[in-house]
């Protein structure tokens, strides 16, 4: 009911605006001048049909992954390794990325303003700072909103291993929510018969259910009751369909060999499942992986945490290339902030939003480059600062999303995918965050 009312509210407001525009201005409301897909394509964008977004929860240390400072007072024990590009080194914990440097682009000048995990994560996911009056949608639901659903039966966006604070579909509502998958090995929650239940028993129970429910369903033919009955029908179909196998990692050919290659880790299996989902027609998959909040004993944990990310990314790039999907799939590595160059008394690094690193690959990204620069000690941005809005504008551009398309929240407020705003008086779009055009070929 609530959703219907929200729709209603939005609709009557739009009608109201249209009426006012007609009477007061003597014109009918005209569609806002959007960027056509041709314009986006001409600027090198729109090549990515899919996106796999690795979100490193906790604050990925830039100093020990993509922006090492070996030999300086802040570099710690982390060594640099060559990438094949003169003067560019990655950390020793990213050997596979260094080997494949021609395929990836590193951004070393990310910056935002909050050092708390939830606030930073929210900003990176939505381009907006958190507010207590609205939840902004994350990028997967934005893509679905602006481009429509990609596959008839599979969900458009999936979040693997996400925690409780993911903004999800925000004000777009539950219908556009990413499908959550907790453990990549277990697939969709409750999608299989409970242990001890077989098909015969299941069918027998369904028959009982339908008999008991018959008189109620005949009496109450409200939209909501009908909708639930439809959900039952669709779910029963889904349970019997092959779509469900898409979420079952063990159905992957050479499963064990692949797990060995991607790594028997959350991020490794997450990457493998993401690849499986994307090649079946899911548009946007986010793989969330934690362990980055390294306040203590950083050099003990970076080997496994950094190493498993590197291994997963390496195998993913190789496989997407082999399957011809690399150019159609944008790979992104993001996080809420970096970590302090100063090493604390516990041998760790603390939160550092002033400068940090992210990574892009595939989907029209021109690899072998570093964009932006941090200063010598990794304290601040020295060149080309990139904000969360610009980071998301880059993802949107790669996916061919129109940065100028206005979408209304249920309360009638206008929003745009990467945080552009609209002048309430003139309806003109005010550009706030541009994509990093240098990353596109």
């Amino acid at each position: 009911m609530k959703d219907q009312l929200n729709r209603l509210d939005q609709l009557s407001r739009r009608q109201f605006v249209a009426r006012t525009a007609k009477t007061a201005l003597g014109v009918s409301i005209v569609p806002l001048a959007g960027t056509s897909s041709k314009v986006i394509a001409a600027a090198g964008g729109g090549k990515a049909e899919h996106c796999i977004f690795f979100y490193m929860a906790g604050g990925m240390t830039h100093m020990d992954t993509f922006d090492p400072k070996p030999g300086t007072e802040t570099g710690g024990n982390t060594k640099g390794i060559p990438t094949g590009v003169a003067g560019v080194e990655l950390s020793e914990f990213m050997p596979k990325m260094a080997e494949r440097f021609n395929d990836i682009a590193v951004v070393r000048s990310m910056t935002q303003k909050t050092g708390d995990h939830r606030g930073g994560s929210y900003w990176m996911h939505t381009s907006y700072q958190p507010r207590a009056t609205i939840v902004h949608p994350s990028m997967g639901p934005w893509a679905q909103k602006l481009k429509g659903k990609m596959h008839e039966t599979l969900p458009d966006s999936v979040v693997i291993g996400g925690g409780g604070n993911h903004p999800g579909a925000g004000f777009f509502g539950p219908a556009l929510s990413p499908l959550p998958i907790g453990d990549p090995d277990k697939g969709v929650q409750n999608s299989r018969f409970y242990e001890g239940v077989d098909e015969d028993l299941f069918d027998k129970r369904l028959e009982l259910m339908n008999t008991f429910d018959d008189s109620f369903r005949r009496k109450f033919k409200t939209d909501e009751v009908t909708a639930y009955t439809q959900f039952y029908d669709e779910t029963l179909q889904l349970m019997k369909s092959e779509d469900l196998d898409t979420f079952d990692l063990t159905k992957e050919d050479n499963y064990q060999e692949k797990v060995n290659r991607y790594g028997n880790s959350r991020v490794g299996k997450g990457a493998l499942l993401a690849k499986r989902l994307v090649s079946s027609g899911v548009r946007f998959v986010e793989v969330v992986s934690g362990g980055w909040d390294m306040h203590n004993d950083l050099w003990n944990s970076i080997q496994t945490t950094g190493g498993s990310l590197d291994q997963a990314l390496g195998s993913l790039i190789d496989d997407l290339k082999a399957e011809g999907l690399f150019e159609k799939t944008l790979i992104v590595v993001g996080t809420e902030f970096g970590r302090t160059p100063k090493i604390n008394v516990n041998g760790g690094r603390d939160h550092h939003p002033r400068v940090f690193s992210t990574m892009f690959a595939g989907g029209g990204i021109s690899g072998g480059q570093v964009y932006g620069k941090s200063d010598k000690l990794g304290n601040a941005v020295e060149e080309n600062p990139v904000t969360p809005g610009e980071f998301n504008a880059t993802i949107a551009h790669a996916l061919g999303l129109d940065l100028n398309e206005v979408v209304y929240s249920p309360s009638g407020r206008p929003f745009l995918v990467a945080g552009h705003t609209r002048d309430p008086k003139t309806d003109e779009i005010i550009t706030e965050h541009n994509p990093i055009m240098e990353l596109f070929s």
Partner: protein
Amino acid sequence: MTKSKQWKQITGFILAAVLLVPTLRAEMRTWTSADGKTLEAEFAGTQGAGSSAKVMLKLPDGSMVPYPISKLSEEDRLFVKGNLPDDPSALAAEIDKLVLNKMKESYYGLRDELAALPGNTNMSNADKAKRKEEIEREMQMCIPNEMTDDNQFLRRIYLDVAGRIPTYDEAEAFLNSRSDTKRADLIDELLESEGFVMRMFNYYSDLFRIREGIFMMGNGDLKADPYIEWVKQSIRDDKPYDEMVRDMLTANGQIWEDPASGYLLADSGMRLCNLSNTFTVFMGTEITCAQCHDHPFEEVYQMDFYKMASFMGETETRARGGNSMMMMGGDNYRQEVQRMSKVLKDAGKLRERENEDRQLRQWLGVKSIMVYDDGTNAVRLPHDYKYDDGEPEMEVKPDTYFGDRMNVEEFESPRHAFAEWVSSPGNPRFTINAVNRFWKIAFGLAQIEPVYNIPGHLDGQAQNYELLVFLEEMMKDLDYSVKDFFRVIYNSKAYQREAETMSPSLTQVDKGTYHFPGPILRRMSAEQLWDSLVTLTTPDPEAFTRSGAEEYKEWMHTDTTTLKTADEIMSYKESWRDIGKIRKYNEQYVSRDDYVDGEEMFRASEMRQPMPDSHFLRMFGQSDKQLIENQFTTGSSPQVMALLNGKITNKILTSPDAYLIKEIANGTGSKRDNIEKIFLSVLTRQPTSEEKQVAQSGMRAKRESGMSDQEKMEAEADAIGNVIWALVNTREFLFIQ
């Protein structure tokens, strides 16, 4: 879809109730009208209630004169007020009268329109046919539904008031009672039950966004327990609603000292958002737009927003001072944490992996988080303010843009003036907002939708304007007693009718033409569903409650400098974890033994706020408590999968160890009785004869030769489990009739 309902059946019902006062009270006195005229008469009772109520005056010549109470002087109104009917049935009868009047009026209007339709030359035949269909549908919804039978009423009143279905024993007790007043008695009983506290808490926690950690961002270690318990206690004590709101807006200090401060702390550091939220929650008014520009469709200017915000401009909700010294024997808490860390480290007890020193720093750090007024207005017009009534970055004086003007000087602080303005009976939206929302709790649809956007002019917007105004007056007359308000509503025939079998169309909702032939059919809220499942696992669903506010206060008051040894510090640390735990009646903490099959089957209000997003409650729409009224009742495949294949329906309710199955297996009833018991427990009704037959065949246990007694019993239990599984999966279970 035809209803056999006819207007004739109920027209005789509309009778005005005259309440006569006992003759003892009757004495001659001088009555004064609002415009100063006087009259000598005896007070002979009141007629009607709310805004249309009249006082019956007996003149010296013995004749009776009804006089509108609203036209009396203030003094006389107060005199009469104590004699206004507070008998819920009398007030309920007034509601019924207004509901029926509106339906009737609308019915005849539609009938006339229908009759005139063929002659209408401005419409095409296709449009006429479409309109005819609409009219006929709406006319059906202008005929009151049948009264609920006892089973329907029982299930609905439990869900609405206690937040869950009745247990088998509770159902039996009500259905077997022969008392004439059993419905009214049950309403009274449930309003006084802990179930009502839990149910209303779920409502408020969605509305106020009550969550663990309270802070939206940043230090997540500020415990919500004092606030949670304060809200529950306010519901339990039936604290007047307006007083509750004032307490929240004027709270001062730390949360364990003044628990109502939780409301303002939820928007810590976001005073403009908090202002918008306060308008939405307590006045049903959406003013967020005006934060950045004049409201595009309503008379709210950006200047209005900042004038309102200035009332709260002196109020700080962030950590006070970076170096606060509080209750620490004069020591700075950071130094104190360092000292404790050192003691632990020296004793070899500082477990690095546990981040013990950081935990202590965070936990003690919340001592500096409080609500206070610092005497300077921090609100300024935005840097890009572009209207000609002010300059960017300018300070503005607090002022209201509707309702009474407030003289800030007369109050302790501008915030107190604001709280008074918000919650006064004179605020044109405060009481309307409350009754509109509470009506929705009972009927599934508000008088004005959406509830967060009540327009300036109500007439023509509400489903039933006269009724809404009546409810507003009634709330004031009941001195904002939430329990009494619901008592009246639930005693009304309008509420006790069968649920509407059709969905009101969006146009009907928009135009305000749904007149409540009965409550609308609703899907249970996530909490109602969860709590109903909990009910099926225990004889006493309210046996486990959460507490910790007292312990928290004590913990925060502890002078840590007295903790000298590592053991003392460690035990102090451990006691933090006992705050906010679930306990049994005997105050013992819940142990793993109390969990049902490893699952926490406790009432939703006693569990984490909100639950993690993969939990059953969240899947079915429990609010994430980030936004006002963020719960939902729309369906999804994951919900259906949880009911088909999840642990609750496949194990907790249906394994041989399940509470309900053991109850039935241990009973002495025949198979036939067992089926009735299951139906009554799950659906609160008896099975039909066909259902009994089908259930019996569904319950036929597998028999194989050579089965042991144990195996036979398990097979029997499995068979009962199938019926329970099937019943919990029906739409009838999921929806509130």
